[in-house]
């Protein structure tokens, strides 16, 4: 069994009186595709936001690669190697697709103001490398022909791909996808599935929030189910699928 990459320890979060997360503990192993499912409002996105530093948990915390994650510091989470996409796509709408991915390289590059003003060789080389890498990533998600288009003018499916490319540009060890298949048709979902499969084969661990149970069960090595903010079960898909509590949660029985 491979080592644990991310561990959530009794993470709790409430909004006013609503307990969005109740002491959720789970662990994601290096190299796996880990699915997080649950009915609407079960707390999946809240969990994501706590993990990536957008929310401060009210209790518990995360350990990433053996070191605790600092709460309320999304930029540090990204620097440590956690990248994410958003349920309702958040691209830099008026920047080109290429520029969007180039921004993703920010955290792995270091040119400062002085370098930019003086256009030093180091800065120029780095800039060329950023551009090259961004083009490669666009190619990887197969939208390289849209490189010079503004992000907002891309089709819905391409926007999803672009967001993944931007996340990959930060060289994540853990890629978190928040409902990437939402609103996609059958063909698009199949393509997305291939893409995620490819990313996993290239060695990136993936955390997948998804509504499409079929996609999750077919793609994930292990699955966790949240209901009313609490963890119901964490196991391989075959076991989860047959679990009575999961069936109840989904049927609302």
């Amino acid at each position: 069994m491979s080592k644990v990459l991310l561990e959530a320890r009794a993470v709790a979060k409430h909004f006013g009186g609503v307990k969005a997360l109740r002491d959720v503990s789970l662990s994601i192993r290096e190299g796996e595709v880990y699915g997080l499912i649950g009915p609407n409002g079960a707390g999946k996105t809240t969990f994501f936001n706590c993990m990536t530093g957008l929310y401060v948990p009210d209790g518990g915390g995360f350990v990433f690669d053996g070191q605790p994650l600092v709460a309320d510091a999304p930029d540090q989470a990204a620097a440590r190697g956690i990248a994410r996409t958003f349920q309702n796509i958040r691209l830099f709408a008026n920047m080109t697709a290429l520029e969007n991915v180039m921004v993703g390289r920010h955290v792995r590059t270091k040119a400062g103001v002085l370098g930019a003003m003086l256009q030093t060789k180091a800065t120029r080389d780095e800039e060329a490398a950023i551009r090259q890498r961004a083009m490669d990533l666009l190619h990887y998600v197969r939208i390289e022909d849209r490189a010079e288009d503004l992000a907002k003018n891309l089709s819905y499916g391409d926007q999803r791909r672009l967001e993944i490319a931007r996340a990959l540009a930060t060289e994540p060890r853990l890629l978190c996808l928040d409902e990437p298949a939402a609103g996609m048709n059958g063909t698009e979902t199949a393509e997305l599935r291939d893409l995620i499969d490819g990313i996993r084969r290239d060695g990136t661990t993936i955390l997948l929030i998804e509504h499409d149970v079929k996609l999750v069960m077919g793609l994930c090595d292990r699955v966790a189910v949240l209901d009313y903010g609490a963890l119901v079960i964490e196991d391989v898909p075959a076991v989860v699928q047959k679990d009575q509590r999961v069936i109840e949660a989904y049927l609302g029985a």
Partner: protein
Amino acid sequence: MKKWLNPRSAFGIALISVALVALPFVAAMGGQAWVRILDFAILYVFLALGLNIVVGFAGLLDLGYIAFYAVGAYAWALLASPHFGIHWPIWAILPIGAGLACIAGVLLGSPTLKLRGDYLAIVTLGFGEIVRIFMNNLNAPINVTNGPQGITLIDPVMIGGFKFSGNTTLFGLTLSGPQKYYFLLVALAILVIIINLRLQNSRIGRAWQAIREDEIAAKAVGINTRNIKLLAFAMGASFGGIAGGVFAAMQGFVSPESFSLMESIMILAMVVLGGMGHIPGVILGAVLLSVLPEALRYGVGPAQTALFGKQLVDPESLRMLVFGLALVLVMRFKPAGLWPSPERKRELAEKKA
């Protein structure tokens, strides 16, 4: 860079260069006053491009920009005038002025940059007023700023043995003080244009734009938004400080009156009216808004006499009235500015459709 070298741009640059060199001599035909107006236009180009980094690139609404200009101006005034009997050279004072302005920017920015846009606007506005009030009142008990009277007899810019005030004859050509300052200011303006261009297409420039577009997404890809914003703030402030120093030296006199809120607003208006974030637009805005009130000064009085045979209303208020109306009308018919960047123009067109 390579794009610049194609024949058409080369021709354009040559044309602009010739125009820039000829301009102060053409203006001098109308009197040195026009050369001074030209000087100020270019000083405002410099200031507006400095503010453009803050407002246009990073999207931070700064209504107290003039405070940094004031810091630079007073730094020069105090370190190069008989007021304290100190007469330091330019290569010492200009960096000090820029540095002090930069520190002021960081001090103001670090606690306030997390504020929402319009709150930041009012906080910076308040800061600008605080600086001005201190300059007005720091003449007692220790006379630091000489209060509302301001500081006079400030040293002009001196580089080596070359003095920028008074007439100089070079190669048989007599240059007036304002004409010499003109060339200094043009050099500075070109420098700040290059810096703006380079920053815009850099890792930092992209980070600024990303923050402007979607701050949360920017954080999620690992941009330390607070530091990157602070960087824009500090850079803008430093440019303000440099401009202030040159202003003090050129005028030979500073007083708090030059650093009112109205000045901050004017510079912001230059940036927005020209086309926020778009460098040629900002330059256009700065030149127009600094020359227009002066042109009106010379135009409004005679126009009234010609039309009505007498001065019906105070020409000073009429000129400001026309100026205010011009702001309103431009914004009405060109909401993205006179010369917006192509993307912004498209953005607006789509919104309407």
